[in-house]
């Protein structure tokens, strides 16, 4: 079920209302059933896979808690193998087979193809497997007692607001909240609804409008002038931010209406002045997951400089691969590795430091945005050929194709003058708001009239200018 659908418009108030009408002891069951309904709106049968991993992780958690010595590690390994195994089969098997087939053909060993699996990737698989792994790792590390209530543990993995695209929560933050008795709080309801509206604005007004241009150009990049490719890439940088942070805002807001606090996933990443700061602000729940469970496990920065760089490279390559089974994502991760290590080297060896003034800060911000946007080419391109073609054409500023002022047509949505004006206007509004208000928009709590104006304006913009063509969220595919 999409947050930007009519189904959710009915689902959300019914679930929230029932939640407060039910006594505390039944609420976990209500939320679990609701989350199952939410998930089964995509491909119902896949709930069985989800439950299988939940069962394994639940049992592994208890066994880790009960066992001692090496047995604890065995249960942790079993849990990780189960989760990574599901990911490997559903997400990476066909990619692996594809590459093996290419290799076998290239070496002339065979002309036959190894068989592919005809399966569709379960929605949000990478998110809930990472959340599940976070639980068993924390239990193993002794930071979290094992959850004995199966229903509550299942709810920890399946809690509908963050089930399919995060934020990837930690058990220490979320599990205790399911045990607490929540009382209806109108302030939480207001905060939650406001944040949901803000997320919806970013998704349906900005992201889905920019998507019309981006999709048209990235579908056939060879037919476009370098300037079109640059515009499409900048638009994609804004689109993916609004799409994903919009989803996160709606998730955090939906949870907040029932009194649950989810972690902030985005902290104005495009206002970062360097690439390290960008990663401290972008998809925070995933970045910190990799930091805590992979980077630290590899030794972090404690084993010398060279090893630190290797660890950074591993984290970013795995992060790229986490996003999708395609070489484009791996190159995206590699590019960020390059950016980060260059920045670290600069910080360490540069004979002088940049002055801290408005001009330099603005230029740093712009340079960071250019680097991040360039890497997005590989993230968004359909395949490596397209990605190289686009990167090369942009760098050469290739003018062999005609510049198209507007794109679309022939039955596809048209991105014309009206779309351009609306996209630019609403993006400016979004950036100004994010510059003035903190990520959860709490400042408005104390300013009722500003809040009224903000919410009314936003709701009008969403209804009048939103795109409600049931466009999925980009991160659902991961």
């Amino acid at each position: 079920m999409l947050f930007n659908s009519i189904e959710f418009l009915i689902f959300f108030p019914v679930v929230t209302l029932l939640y407060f009408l039910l006594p505390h002891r039944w609420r976990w069951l209500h939320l679990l059933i609701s989350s199952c309904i939410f998930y089964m709106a995509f491909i119902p049968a896949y709930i069985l896979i989800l439950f299988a991993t939940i069962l394994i992780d639940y049992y592994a958690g208890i066994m880790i808690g009960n066992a001692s010595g090496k047995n604890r590690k065995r249960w942790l390994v079993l849990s990780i193998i189960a989760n990574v195994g599901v990911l490997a089969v559903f997400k990476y098997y066909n990619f692996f087979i594809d590459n093996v087939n290419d290799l076998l053909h290239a070496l002339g060993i065979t002309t036959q193809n190894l068989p592919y699996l005809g399966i569709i990737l379960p929605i949000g698989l990478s998110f809930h497997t990472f959340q599940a792994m976070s639980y068993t790792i924390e239990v193993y590390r002794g930071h979290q007692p094992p959850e004995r209530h199966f229903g509550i543990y299942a709810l920890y993995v399946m809690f509908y607001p963050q089930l399919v695209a995060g934020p990837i929560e930690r058990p220490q933050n979320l599990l205790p909240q399911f045990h607490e008795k929540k009382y209806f709080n109108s302030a939480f309801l207001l905060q939650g609804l406001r944040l949901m509206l803000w997320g919806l604005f970013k998704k349906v007004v900005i992201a889905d409008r920019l998507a019309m241009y981006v999709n048209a150009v990235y579908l056939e990049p060879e037919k476009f002038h370098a300037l079109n490719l640059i515009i499409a890439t900048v638009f994609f940088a804004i689109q993916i931010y609004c799409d994903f942070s919009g989803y996160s805002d709606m998730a955090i807001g939906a949870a907040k209406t029932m009194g649950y606090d989810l972690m902030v996933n985005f902290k104005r990443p495009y206002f970062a002045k360097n690439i390290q700061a960008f990663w401290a602000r972008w998809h925070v729940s995933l970045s910190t997951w990799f930091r805590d469970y992979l980077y630290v496990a590899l030794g972090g920065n404690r084993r010398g400089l060279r090893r630190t760089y290797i660890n950074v490279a591993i984290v970013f390559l795995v992060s790229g691969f986490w996003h999708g089974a395609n070489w484009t994502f791996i190159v995206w991760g590699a590019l960020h590795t390059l950016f980060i290590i260059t920045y670290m080297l600069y910080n360490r060896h540069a004979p002088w430091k940049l002055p801290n003034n408005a001009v330099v800060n603005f230029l740093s911000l712009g340079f960071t945005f250019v680097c991040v946007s360039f890497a997005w080419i590989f993230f968004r391109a359909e395949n490596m050929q397209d990605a190289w073609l686009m990167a090369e054409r942009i760098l050469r500023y290739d003018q062999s194709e005609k510049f198209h002022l507007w794109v679309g047509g022939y039955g596809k949505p048209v991105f014309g003058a009206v779309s351009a004006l609306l996209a630019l206007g609403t993006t400016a509004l979004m950036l100004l708001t994010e510059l003035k208000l903190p990520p959860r928009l709490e400042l408005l709590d104390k300013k009722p009239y500003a809040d009224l104006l903000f919410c009314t304006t936003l709701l009008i913009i969403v209804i009048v200018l939103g795109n409600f063509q049931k466009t999925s969220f980009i991160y659902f595919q991961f």
Partner: protein
Amino acid sequence: MKTIYRILIPVVLALLICQAVYWLMSSGLQRFQAYRTPHLQELFVSKTQHDMLFLGSSRVVGGIHPGVIDSLTGLNTYNGGIDGGNILEFAIALKGYLAVHPPPKLVVLNLDYISFDLRRKFFNYVQYYNVLQNRVVDSSLRANGHPVFFAKHLPLFRLTAYDDFTRSNCFKGWRGITEISAGEYQYKGFLSNTDFFIEADSTVVLDTLQRYVSPGSLDLLNDMVQTCRQHKIPLVLLHSPIYKQMLFRSIRVYPQILALSDSTARHNQLAYWRHDTLPLCSNPAFFANVGHLNKTGARAYSVVLAAQLKKYMEQSPGFAP
């Protein structure tokens, strides 16, 4: 201020303002749609008796002139073409028409290279919001993923169905611009399609038309055949003129499209008129572009079509005008 007011006031205010915005925008859109609105009203709401109904996409809208055909055959015909339409929209047009009008004596259905492509079910479903009182239109939109409850009972929610193209048309309407360009005219569903003509063959081949034959499209065609049969209406299948069959080169599924039309006609013993091979199809002066006749071409073609219809009527009993 109480929190509940902070939630309710923006909702109520926004809905009221959106309703006002809807009135403004829909009035702009109505002005812009100077052809579409009366055309769809005639097709789906009016009860007028017509002798003959033409169905198809823009090739019918701008290619078949009921005025010419009426004058040559003595019949009262109506051009029920839907711009950008496919077989789903043709089926809705036929059934929606029959839900309110007396059955015509003949239906002529043009099948072309976009007819069997259902990847985008409706080219412009917003245009049907003004004719939701037609039960066929209402149920067809619902059945094809466009819930119309809000659009029907709370019209302001129609705004959520507008895309930027529709929004820009609202602005154009306010500025006095309509979809009938200067020098063009409409007549009984026909909308004239400029005086432009093809100047050089090399400039007109479209390579972006990646068309498709969708699963289920043949079922819809068979359903239309059955609907006509149930109402005892003779059905003629048609392929209207395209310039020098040029689109055959750029649309890979063209042979499949023609075979589908042909086999359906044979199987159901229907007439199938291939007018893409007429001599007029080689005359660039008749075409606004490779796929569409211009104003002069539409008149010339309507004369040819009227002659064939007249012959068809003479051979078939029960066609007294």
